[in-house]
């Protein structure tokens, strides 16, 4: 046992100390080099790393632009103006879906690029209920809904009256093969509506777009053309074709939610 006590300190310690010093030095030297191979570049290194490894999302929309701090927040589907397809013949439809009540502010996406102000005048913006015309605009189509004759041109519907035609609210059930200019896609209640001229169109399996009853609880970025301001329980609202639109601040800007008093 005495041999044991004297053996280790007198022979092993210096050698092991040297080995330890060499080993630790090698480890300390090699770590950054190995780390660099794994992308662990030292701070302030000149070579930037690749930052675009993740696949690009298809479409994103932020509630606003111009903030770095909130660049990752509020990324939603972008309801966009729909691109038009060539005109085709219009077929009237009778299979009208019943009105849908959508739980407000659930699964509802609205256009949130709130501050973009581009003047985009659309034909249907000029709609005025009851306005009379002696001649229909060039490019109109004739259609019948439930046996009632209508005429249509780019988001505005007309009915014949004595001495001419008058502009009427978009009739539920009307089918068009091309969305009106400026239609905005709005996802609500699990389906996509196309909102234009105060009407909510739904895409059908045969490729046509049919006016559905206005969903209640959906939020739209703009009022229907010609909506009339009214007072409901002392607060301001707008009325269009029997549906009420309540202005609310959403994402810091005024938008409109459909409701029935």
């Amino acid at each position: 046992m005495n041999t044991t006590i004297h053996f280790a300190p007198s022979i092993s310690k210096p050698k092991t100390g040297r080995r330890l010093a060499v080993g630790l030095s090698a480890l300390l030297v090699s770590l950054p080099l190995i780390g660099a191979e794994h992308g662990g570049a030292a701070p302030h290194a000149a070579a930037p790393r690749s930052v675009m490894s993740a696949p690009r999302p298809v479409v994103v929309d932020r509630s606003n632009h111009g903030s770095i701090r909130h660049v990752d927040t509020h990324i939603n589907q972008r309801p966009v103006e729909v691109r038009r397809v060539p005109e085709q013949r219009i077929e009237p439809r009778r299979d009208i879906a019943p009105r849908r009540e959508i739980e407000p502010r659930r699964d509802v996406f609205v256009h949130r690029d709130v501050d973009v102000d581009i003047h985009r005048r659309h034909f249907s913006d000029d709609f005025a209920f009851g306005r009379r015309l002696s001649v229909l605009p060039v490019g109109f189509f004739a259609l019948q809904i439930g046996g009632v004759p209508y005429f249509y041109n780019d988001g505005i519907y007309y009915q014949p009256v004595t001495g001419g035609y008058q502009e009427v609210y978009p009739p539920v059930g009307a089918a068009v093969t091309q969305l009106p200019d400026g239609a905005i896609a709005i996802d609500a209640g699990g389906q996509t509506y196309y909102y234009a001229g105060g009407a909510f169109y739904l895409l059908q399996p045969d490729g046509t777009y049919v006016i559905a009853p206005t969903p209640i609880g959906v939020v739209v970025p703009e009022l229907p053309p010609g909506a009339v301001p009214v007072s409901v329980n002392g607060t301001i609202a707008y009325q269009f074709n029997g549906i009420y639109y309540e202005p609310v601040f959403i994402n810091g800007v005024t938008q409109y939610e459909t409701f029935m008093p």
Partner: protein
Amino acid sequence: MKARIRFRSPVRTSLTLALIACAFSGFMALSAPAADEKPAIDPHADELLKRMGDYLGEAKFFSVSAEVWQDAQLSSGQRVQAGRTVELQVRRPDRLRATVHSTRRNRELIYDGNSLTLFNRVQNFYGTVHTSGPLDQAMDVASEQFGIDMPLEDFIRSDPHKDLLQKVTSGSDIGPVTVLGVPCEHLAFTQNNIDWQVWIEDGPTPVPRKFVITYKDEPNSPQFTAIFSHWDFITKLPDFVFKFEPPPGASKLKVQEIKAENESRKSKTEEK
């Protein structure tokens, strides 16, 4: 016998443990994810950004205007730019008036230390939510609870340098350039889904003169551009600047919370 004796040596045992510890820590360092990585930022760019951040963060009050241009796409596919003007009046620690106006729109956000008011001047609508605390806190409430993000808020916060660099992966100093005749230093930064650039004025007033964000994750990588002017650190901003009085005939609207909507969407995403 010797082997047994060596094995029992306390010195050898401690050395062995030390080597194992070193090897283990080395392994852990190698297997650690990129979270531990530090961004590759040019020290000079970092220093200039810090200088700007400190200057803005330490200012008791200031006013500034910014002309903002943002890429947009028409339904035809044509790309255009939409313009607007942002005017900011800031008095630390808890006052802000921000106006965003363009040809057809004019909205304001006013924070007086106790409430946050949104004002749609064109339609004469306003809405108020109660919140208090310093500006950073109020802006967080506005964003997280009500979905209100003010453009250029990165420059209003108390520590712009820290906030701006939060998610940056690399940054560099592009070099000197003039913005509307003002000598500036051009800095460029990268993070996961955006690139951003800032042009900082040379000299004793290191304020941003231009700011560009490129949204790399959006189709066609649209850009947001702001050109700053009329920096004013001298004109005092009294209380009335931040006090909102509804104009005659103004209608009060609800300010919709978005928190529940975001949580609902988040849980749906997680389920998928």
